[in-house]
């Protein structure tokens, strides 16, 4: 089961240089034709400084950094029994190509719950506050992992 003594623990920072090509790749993988994600000129015409990142882009630094497997191991969560229960983003500032964003994963809470069917589950909430190269908060990601037992 998830190790509840790890609440409050922080992990190695995720450092990610945002690239225009990666933004376009993410939009194309989703199949989002919105030109603001694909074309710098279209983004500028729509009032952006450059191509902004799609709303779920922060999964990119999180997944490519492999920070979640490290955290799951450290919390002694059974990888085969873990589900992605919820994901939430708060957006504070625009993120653009050329920005370097840094996020520190933190275990926000570990709670045991019992499902309607009577099964016990551990609910692990991980928060990552991302800052840009100017040390400004740009976004927060909150992930709920559910470990079935």
């Amino acid at each position, binding site marked *: 089961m998830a190790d509840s003594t790890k609440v409050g623990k922080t992990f190695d920072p995720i450092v990610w240089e945002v690239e225009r090509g990666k933004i376009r790749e993410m939009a194309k993988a989703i199949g*989002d034709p919105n030109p603001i994600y694909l074309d710098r000129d279209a983004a500028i015409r729509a009032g952006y400084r450059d191509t902004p990142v799609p*709303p779920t882009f922060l999964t990119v630094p999180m997944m490519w950094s492999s920070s979640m497997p490290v955290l799951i191991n450290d919390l002694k969560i059974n990888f085969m029994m873990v589900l992605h229960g919820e994901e939430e983003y*708060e957006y504070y500032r625009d993120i653009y190509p050329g920005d370097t964003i840094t996020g520190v994963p933190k275990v926000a809470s570990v709670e045991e719950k019992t499902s309607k069917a009577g099964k016990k589950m551990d609910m692990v909430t991980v928060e990552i506050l991302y800052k840009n190269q100017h040390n400004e908060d740009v976004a927060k990601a909150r992930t709920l992992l559910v470990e079935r037992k």
Partner: protein
Amino acid sequence: MGNELYFEDIKVGDALPELSKGPIMKLQHVLYAGASGDFNPLHTDDDFAKAVGMKDGVISHGMLIMGFVGQAITAWVPRKCLRKFGVRFAGMTKPGNTIMVSGTVTDKRQENGENLVFCEVVARDEGGDVKITGNFSAALPLKRG
């Protein structure tokens, strides 16, 4: 994008324009794995998926379906207006599914100098099964700023 959306024009109960995505192909899982960095073989390797109990093989990345919802949202409100976006993953999506994203305005209020609209969103497959429920808030401009 081109057509401006103003706080005054939004009413509680308004529906977001619906978005239909799919049918999802396995190839899209490969594209999304590469883009996102989520290489869990549960999404790209039928043999692996069957070995861990998925009788029909691979399932879609939950974050891909959240991406569809994000597409629907930012086709309606400008990306820069989005303040918060959260979802609960309610069901698994499989290749062949077509996902319909819909949403409704649930509240609007002025808060901390911003004109916020709050909406619920839901993603269902062609059979009506719910894949994602969620909500978002966006800060919209006033007609006379």
